């Protein structure tokens, strides 16, 4: 990060980078894909771009299973996880992936940090940046914070979950696990139901963009209170009738439900939620034998998903977890090599 002089700052936005939008054409479009090397969202990515990343992930998966010598792809590089919201699973998955590429790893979590002493996020980022960082892996509860941080550093910024906005590596992981099981490289012709609290789910948003970009037909299922409004322009259909959708779905993707949603009337009770939108034993038994079951974890067993369904042969849950390492290896490597946003399946640059 080149620190700017006061006069340079005056021409910049948020003091850190050039204006990200132009008033001349009233274009406020998210500039995620113009930022050289970040992985901030799935929205807007092409099928060929996702396939290129998944191909790299595949080669990492192969190497890991063959117990080849450790990759040195990121030797001498530094990956810093910057977690302002606690998520040990996600953080360990990223850090493990970085180490498997021989990268150095630094960890910053808000609980132990100077954020509690009042240091701003911008100062935190620029302080760590000055130590020499090639990629930041950012988790924050406020939508867009990884995007904002990318204005404050020249390092790659990888979104590890920002509020209810996106969790882009989770969507790649889910796509990887699903394509692996299907033995295919796209989802054309697949009917996928995403079930539950879509409104508050970053996983659901990223998966809508990933699954549809890969060719699937996606149906969002839940009570109206837990589905986002004004989504006519999303490439999905919407239903409040789980049983009808279930009959037509080749994949059923269950979202974690938070019991607190009952407190504000977004659902009446957990019991009624389960009866209407849970993948219960009865619903599981009604599935076609080749219908696949997914869940991003951590699961509320016995609530949105029954133990029988979660542990069945139709469940991809453990494969989803396993896919985390190779997929995050691919994302880290391609970000730091600055190929993540311009690679396609036909013109793969890696």
């Amino acid at each position, binding site marked *: 990060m080149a620190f700017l002089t006061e006069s340079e700052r005056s021409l910049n936005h*948020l*003091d850190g980078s050039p204006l990200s939008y132009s*008033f001349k054409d*009233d274009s*406020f479009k998210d500039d995620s894909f113009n930022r050289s090397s970040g992985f901030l969202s799935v929205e807007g990515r092409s099928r060929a771009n996702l396939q290129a990343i998944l191909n790299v992930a595949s080669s990492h998966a192969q190497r890991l299973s063959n117990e080849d010598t450790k990759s040195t792809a990121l030797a001498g590089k530094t990956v810093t996880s910057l977690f302002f919201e606690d998520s040990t699973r996600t953080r360990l998955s990223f850090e493990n992936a970085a180490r498997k590429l021989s990268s150095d790893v630094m960890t910053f979590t808000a609980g132990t940090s100077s954020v509690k002493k009042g240091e701003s996020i911008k100062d935190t980022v620029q302080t760590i940046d000055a130590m020499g960082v090639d990629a930041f892996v950012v988790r924050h509860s406020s*939508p*867009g*914070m990884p995007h904002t941080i990318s204005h404050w550093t020249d390092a790659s910024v990888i979104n590890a979950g920002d509020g209810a*906005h996106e969790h882009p590596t989770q969507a790649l992981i889910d796509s990887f696990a699903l394509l692996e099981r299907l033995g295919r490289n796209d989802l054309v012709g697949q009917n996928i139901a995403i079930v539950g609290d879509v409104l508050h789910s970053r996983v659901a948003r990223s998966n809508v963009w990933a699954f549809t970009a890969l060719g699937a037909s996606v149906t969002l299922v839940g009570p109206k209170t837990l589905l986002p409004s*004004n989504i006519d322009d999303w490439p999905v259909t919407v239903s409040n009738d789980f049983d009808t959708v279930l009959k037509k779905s080749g994949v059923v993707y269950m979202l974690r439900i938070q019991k607190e949603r009952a407190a504000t009337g977004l659902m009446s009770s957990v019991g009624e939620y389960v009866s209407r939108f849970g993948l219960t034993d009865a619903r599981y038994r009604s599935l076609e034998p080749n219908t696949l079951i997914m869940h991003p974890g951590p699961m509320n067993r016995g609530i949105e998903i029954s133990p029988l369904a979660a542990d069945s042969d139709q469940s991809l849950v453990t494969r989803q977890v396993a896919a985390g390492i190779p997929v995050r290896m691919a994302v880290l490597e391609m970000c730091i090599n600055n190929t993540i946003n311009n690679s396609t399946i036909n013109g793969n640059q890696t």
Partner: protein
Amino acid sequence: MSDNKTIAICGGEVVIDNQLQAADVVIRDGVVAEVGQNVNCDGATVIDATGAWVMPGFVDIHTHLREPGRTEAETVETGSRAAALGGYTAVVAMPNTEPAIDNLGIIEQIRSAAKAALCEVAVSACITRGRGGKELVNFASLSAAGVHIYTDDGNGVQDTALMLHALQYASDLDVVLAQHCEDESLSAGGFMHEGAVSSRLGIGGIPPEAEELMVMRDIALSRKAQVAMHFLHLSTKRSVELVRDAKAAGMNVTAEATPHHFTLTDEALNSFDPNFRVNPPLRSAPDRAAVIEGLKDGTIDAIATDHAPHAPELKELPLTEAPCGMLGLETAASLANSELQLGAVELSRLLSINPARIARLHETHGQIAVGRPANITVFDPNAEWTVDPMQLASKARNTPFAGRDMTGRTRHTIFNGEVVVADSKAQR
């Protein structure tokens, strides 16, 4: 201020009696002495108005000056300088300071600070003590001290019965209650307009109904109390329709809209930039169009800035933690000029005549006429400039218009006969 000096504003077109006519204006001892084509300019300091409109000084009925309590973001002095540069000769200071303006002591403090101001600073007061929404302020004593506008702005008065009682209690005083319309049970958890953009970005939404329900409620309360009511910063299509219908039914209601609501939409939040976080939020394109229509057809009486300075570090917080609000004084008239395309007479109505009347400042502002105090703005509708946050006179930098090319700019501002802005530069 204007010690025996004579000033002549020459070469412009003057807004006189709802018409724009080529004329010169001569000011003697702070008062308009002559308006016409063959005026006596002997010994006068001549101010060039060639190619510009000579308009009654603008009046902003919605300005947050942050004094006392948040003087790192703005003071009466810096805010008044920003106002003068924007063409304002009077502003109404909003009462959500720290502490809130709910008693005569704080009002005296602000009036004292306003002695050094570059424009008139009228003070408004809260409806409820400390903006707590529980107990009414002493309307009669505040009114006797010259406070005309009352509002808990920043929040709406949530308790319906309390709001009714406020309207009824103050109904025999010459005051106006102004509402920030927001049903907080509906807006809770929201950070931007609830719509296609918020759904896509996963940002909690503030539905239009949060505003509309309180507009609807307060129209009913105003009707019951049979007293005038002012609606702050209307932002939705249905709100504009509700006020239009109330006026058509003969009710004594007035309304304002901000430059950001008639210029920007929720699409701006695609940048995740907290400078676009404001309350009420930037709405959809149809809402914006309805606000413009309301300004043009008279449903909305006034343009008001809701100038809301915040220190830079607060606007670098995450979107969901950053405070609401944006600067407005130095950009409002330019945006009104370029976005509304109304011409000098109609702009004077929205920026000066109507707001002066609403704030009871119409004896001294809102009209260029012989014998009246010289509160005059010379506005060049064709001047081009680019907004540079670092060049603003406001202490804060949180303009949502950074880098925007503007058409139209205040060239000179004359406050009580003193040239406080000349050639778009503050004179003190």
